């Protein structure tokens, strides 16, 4: 049995303790916004927040997050607002992604947005070097220049 909260809802699943959180979220809970890219924590497409920290869910066994609060892309806006946000139900990071027309194929962008949100939550005004160090996700379409622009637009200073 594994028990954890996803986007505020508690789930108890009869699954193996070593099942990665990614597959628990996708196949057991049927929530598909979190993506499978590599399975070895290299690309970051599967990034979710565990108690606010960015974590690559494809290598995180559910045994390691027992009782934790998980936020996925579907719950990001609510988590960022602390309540139900006004339409269109987007966090500031998500809105910046639209304003800067960041995604292309979009497949990596859930993970990219989760990584950027966690970075900005701990470091509201990251330098370029800190952005480079904090965002190591792979985007095969090459949305990086716009990822950087969008993050810079959100920096507070």
């Amino acid at each position, binding site marked *: 049995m594994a028990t954890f909260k996803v986007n505020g809802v508690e789930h108890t699943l009869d699954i193996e303790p070593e*099942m990665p959180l990614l597959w628990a979220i996708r196949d057991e809970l*049927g929530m598909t916004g979190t993506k499978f890219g590599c399975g*070895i924590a290299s690309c970051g*497409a599967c990034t979710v927040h565990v108690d606010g920290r960015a974590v690559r869910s494809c290598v995180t066994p559910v045994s390691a997050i027992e009782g934790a609060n998980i936020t996925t892309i579907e719950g990001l806006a609510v988590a960022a607002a602390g309540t139900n946000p006004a339409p269109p139900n987007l966090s500031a990071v998500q809105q910046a992604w639209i304003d800067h*027309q960041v*995604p292309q194929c979009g497949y990596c962008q859930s993970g990219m947005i989760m990584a950027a949100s966690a970075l900005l939550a701990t470091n509201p005004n990251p330098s370029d070097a800190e952005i*480079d160090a904090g965002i190591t996700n792979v985007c*095969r379409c090459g949305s*990086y220049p716009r990822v950087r622009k969008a993050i810079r637009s959100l920096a507070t200073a």
Partner: protein
Amino acid sequence: MKINRRRFILTGAVVGGGVLIGYSATRPSRHRRANSDLVQGQERYITSFIKIEPNNAITIYVPHSEMGQGIHTALSMMAADELDANWEEVNIEQAPAIDLFANGDLVKGFAGEFGVPNFLMGLVGASAFAVAEIGNLQITGGSSSVRYTGEYGMRTAGAAARELLMETAAVRWGVPVSELTTELSHVHHNASGRSYSYGQLAAQAAVMEPPENPTLKDRSEFKIMGKAISRNDIPPKVDGSAFYGLDAHSDDMLYAAIQMAPVFGTKLVSVDAREARAQRGVKKIVQLEDSVAVVADSYWRAKEALKLVKAEFSSSEYDSVSSADIAARFDRELAASNGSKDKEVGDAEAAMESAADIIEGNYRVPYLAHAPMEPMNCTVHIQGDKADLWTSTQDALGIKGRVAKIAGLGEDDVTFHQTYCGGGFGRRLPFNWNMIDHATLIAKQFDVPVKTIFSREDDMQQDYYRPAVSSNFKAAFDANNNVLAWHNRFTGPIQVPGASHIPYAIENQSIRVVDGDTHVPIAAWRSVDHSQQTFFTESFMDEIAHRAGRNPYQFRMDMLQEHPRHRKVLEVAAEAAGYGRNLPEGHALGIAVQESFGSIVAEVAEVSMDANNKPVVHKVTCAIDCGWAVNPDTVEQQVESGIIFGLTAAMYGEIKIENGRVANGNFPDYEMVRLATTPDIDVHIVESGHELGGLGEPATPPIAAAVTNAIYILTGQRVRELPLSKHDFSRSTPVAQV
């Protein structure tokens, strides 16, 4: 290219109370079917592509896959602008994967002599079967969507619909059409102050005689085209709701993990799956001709159980082949054969004999994987003689036909469910069908949906690769350092004719291709042959410039007197990059230019070497002449994307063949440019007003040579083999920039 528009504008045929009139990329008979199959209630299909409802809602159906290139938005802009539609009220939908929305015949508009589009030639050969299939595809590739479907289909459809609506209003009001204007989905008669919404006219317009040759707008009349309009696919891509093939889900779904024969072409011999079968959630072990799959109630369980399967595959004559063997074979082929003609001008051999000096340069590039972010996957649900299909594809209609064929069903019995495509780059084009076939065969053994997923490692090792190519050059000079001859022999196959041809004024040219077939399967990879050939030709051109003691930019400009569009993009890129001005200490600029898919692109790379003698690309300045820009923001986005894709290949890209199979596993073995290694990218759109050029691919080809040409100035080392990660630049001798 000439397309007779009249042939494609359809006159209406009344079936079931509705009439279709408009522009078609396919046979008119199919539109009569569209009418009976799709028209409901008060809706009217004015064309295949446009639907106008009584409440004035306009829906534009786009017969192409959205994989991030913004095609749904760009094509809809083209139709909506000609229609004078209110963009705020336009809905965009991907056209269903049914044959009346086939775009294959339109794709044939730029087909080669065998009736097969050039970018597919390498895949299909020219078999009659394949040629016949092309018309029934729904292809997204060859940087063709805006150029062909958009320019010929969408704009004509919009213009024809607008003229019909005006004609209808003129009849109702009893006034000449010339007194009418259109704006924001309304027809106005300004003299009397009367107006109709398009929705009020649509039903009657549908039974009017359509225009034979509707007038398209002049660029000065555009209201939507030419504007940086936000893409409609972006909002669902920021909140996790965008639906990709991998996201197909149902509570009763089963999942398959598959082990493929590691050496291409070998077969499954024996399987010991006793241990795997006993694992939790495992439903079945499925043996196929060249693979074994574990089907379980979760992908993770299937994948874990697969690790316990002991499978043996047949041996083959390729079992010991390595990348080095293939390169050596290419060298032998190039030494032994004069190959077949690609291009011959003048007499290069004679010029070589009379030359005062000759330089040589032998180049090679490795196989590359497509590695789209969404691993290959396919979900099939077969119930009796019907099937449902979910997969991310660059050809919805073709893949539906393929699944039907493998499942032994009729094409109309398979329902394809639309999905976004998590990257394609050629991997998801027709004929690259390996895992689609497997998924279908596995699903045939169940009556619930089965999702087959390639792991990242499977995807890396079971791709259809960008071909490895070796290319040998010689150039002849006279005593005054003028270039007399260009001599090039390279390994094939040629997938896109002309990629090896140079625009430079060299009187004698001999370009020939020798056999480069191996057991490694190949396919189109973003920009196809241009990705290899531009690295070769633009590097060797740089060698020639340096040998002649000339500035590489000025040398190119001088040799391009007959190509003003090339000169213009070079000039714009060089000026914007600060070419010839002072650079930061230790930085150098490299330049390259290439025409591909109808667009001409010049790129200037600003590069330095870091403390470990590794190249750092600081900035890429790009000028692109794509005729004109339908959506300037997506043009810039595609250029950024193409450059980074090409830079990844130049820096790191290498699929290694060992023991007949691909040795690379996951991303650490196939590294990518990431945020930290992404240069600043400065894009300049040069609007020449020429015919529209492609955008998905043309920015990829020049980047490798632009970077290595800069590295030559920094180090004195000419990079003749990619990727850069293989090279040791520690013993460098900078070259004085001339």
